[in-house]
């Protein structure tokens, strides 16, 4: 997880035409009055067409900052410094400039945010939200755009789309609003969708509907999805690959089944054990993770999880373990990387 690690391996060669998304040693430093916070600290991965990368982590792990930096919503300026590269469909996001980004957003990449109410303009009708990007990125007249907007609402499973176009966001339920936001982000069939906690504000039954919808749309449109969530269950069922973030870094990444089936990083293991499960009897004592995430202005020098880790030894606090070190040392299988000197389940391959 240290610095310039190689690109994370993405599935076998057949799929590897050219990745939709390449993130290379991305760092986002936020300048605050208390000091500089390295919110994203050297993250690299690639994502191919039709694939889903799940990013999980707790609050403050940097997962949302990562999503927004990939999107180009965060770039170098007075309050932050971004370094590293992000290529979406071959375009280097952080060299595009304002007008280039406007071309990129809504056509090559779409984003779905956590709170569908604040992602929609309360004084504009649903139809206006949808036709805006259609008319901007495609040569459509008003009537064509409106017809296409109705098709989009149909695509995301909203009944009576024509009527909904003339409604305001407050007239829709939370699930319906999130469908509208998804329809907006899909209007021009982007190659990449970044979904930042898309179902966190929703009930479980609606959450399932929205995740099923994303699955179906991914099949139909072949887009790549970066699915950011604090809910491991959401990610486990939907992602091809999963990256676990802690304190700005990826601590473990693998295919979803491998990561949840046999985690090697103590943090991943601890997270999985902290979650109450329906298949456990009531009143089972949960394995809480002691302590709190580090102060990101002055994070620990070595492994950032070491102060809370039950397996930590003296070498953990000296230098940060690298994400691909375990593969190099032959402990991990290719495709399963973790940044740890004393991994768990290491003998159980």
């Amino acid at each position: 997880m240290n610095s310039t690690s190689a690109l994370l391996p993405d599935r076998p060669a057949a799929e590897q035409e050219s990745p939709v998304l390449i993130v290379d040693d991305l760092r986002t430093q936020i300048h605050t009055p208390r000091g500089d916070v390295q919110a994203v600290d050297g993250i690299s991965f690639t994502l191919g067409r039709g694939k889903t990368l799940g990013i999980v982590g707790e609050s403050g792990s940097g997962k949302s900052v990562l999503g927004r930096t990939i999107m180009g919503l965060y770039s170098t300026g007075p309050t932050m410094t971004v370094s590293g590269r992000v290529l979406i469909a071959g375009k280097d996001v952080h060299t595009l400039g304002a007008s280039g980004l406007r071309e990129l957003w809504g056509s090559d990449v779409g984003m779905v945010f956590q709170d569908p109410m604040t992602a929609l303009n309360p004084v504009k009708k649903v139809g206006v939200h949808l036709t805006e990007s259609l008319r901007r990125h495609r040569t459509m007249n008003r009537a064509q755009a409106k017809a296409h907007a109705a098709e989009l609402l149909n695509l995301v499973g909203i009944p009576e789309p024509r009527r909904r176009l003339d409604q305001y966001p407050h007239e829709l339920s939370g699930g319906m609003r999130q469908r509208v936001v998804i329809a907006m982000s899909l209007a021009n069939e982007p190659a990449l969708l970044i979904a930042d906690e898309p179902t966190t504000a929703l009930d479980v039954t609606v959450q399932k509907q929205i995740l099923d919808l994303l699955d179906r749309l991914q099949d139909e449109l072949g887009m790549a999805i970066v699915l950011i969530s604090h809910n491991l269950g959401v990610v486990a069922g939907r992602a091809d690959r999963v990256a676990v973030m802690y304190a700005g870094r990826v601590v473990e990444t693998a295919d979803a089944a491998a990561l949840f089936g046999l985690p090697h990083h103590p943090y991943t293991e601890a997270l999985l054990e902290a979650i109450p499960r329906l298949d456990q009897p009531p009143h089972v004592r949960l394995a809480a993770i002691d302590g709190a995430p580090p102060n990101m202005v002055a994070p620990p020098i070595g492994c950032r999880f070491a102060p809370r880790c039950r397996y930590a030894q003296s070498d953990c606090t000296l230098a940060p373990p690298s994400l691909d070190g375990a593969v190099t040392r032959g402990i991990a299988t290719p495709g399963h990387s973790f940044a740890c000197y004393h991994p768990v389940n290491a003998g159980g391959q």
Partner: protein
Amino acid sequence: MAGSGVAHLRLGAEQILTVEELVVQFPTKGGQTVHAVSGISFDLLDGETLGILGESGCGKSSAGRAVMQLPPPTAGSVRLGNDELTGLNAQTVRERRARMQMIFQDPVSSLNPRRKVKDLVAEGPKIWGREVTREQIESVLHAVGLDPAVVWERRPHELSGGQCQRVCIARALMLDPEVLICDEPVSSLDVSVQAQILNLLEETKQRYGLSMVFIAHDLAVVKNISDRIMIMYLGKVCEVLPASSLAERALHPYTQLLLESVPDMTPPPIEAGTVAQRATGELPSPLNPPSGCRFRTRCPLATEECAAVEPQMREVEQGHFLACHNSGPGASGVA
């Protein structure tokens, strides 16, 4: 679902809290009525934890608040031990309900941002004119896993969400309650902190001999902490069952829908035609709830009977009660 009836009340047992036919309605500007809770009943035994499970808008929070008389329910009875809480003047209610304390979802906004932890914790007894010693405050802070020396002079913004929730629990404990009502106490917390708080609530319950009503939307969380679980939908009770039966023995179509909607670490292959796939649509408006069973508009098992007759709670096995015409043994329709 959404049935009426009191078959699940354990008459004759030693109840610490009994709620009967609780109704909560709110008038709207247009002269309509929001039917938040429409006649639910439940009881709580000494030392028991009752989990109330449901999605947003099912009335679980309104029910919890109505038990606390915040505001008093539109109709129905709430008895704490042998003391009736409804229909009393404000002063008597305040005196009687001090034996019940509540913990809310957002721990930061439920603490006065201008007060220090030592004052926040001492606030309850001081309101009652009781002497509070430094030792008492320190001991309760220790009990909730906070170091008094560290947090003593701090204000809520200097604490994390999990620490604020610990302060809220400490505040509740200072009044030596018999019943703790927790309304989504862990849903704004990260999983690692959530586990800490759930463990803390369990320990606190043992140490202080509390009974608990635990309101939440997360099935696994509710199962973890509860002895008995009541599932609500649109202001009514669907099912009451022992927590240990939730995953395997739940019968109500809505409970099944909830169970099948939970994203799982090891997703089972979903068979075609499960309830979750066949259940459609959205929560109806509580302004104008459906007749009969309130879940019928989304229920794959719904028949004409469901629209005409509201199902009543009936016992399907020991301690397991169900309000549905078409599921469970002895269903009148075809399951």
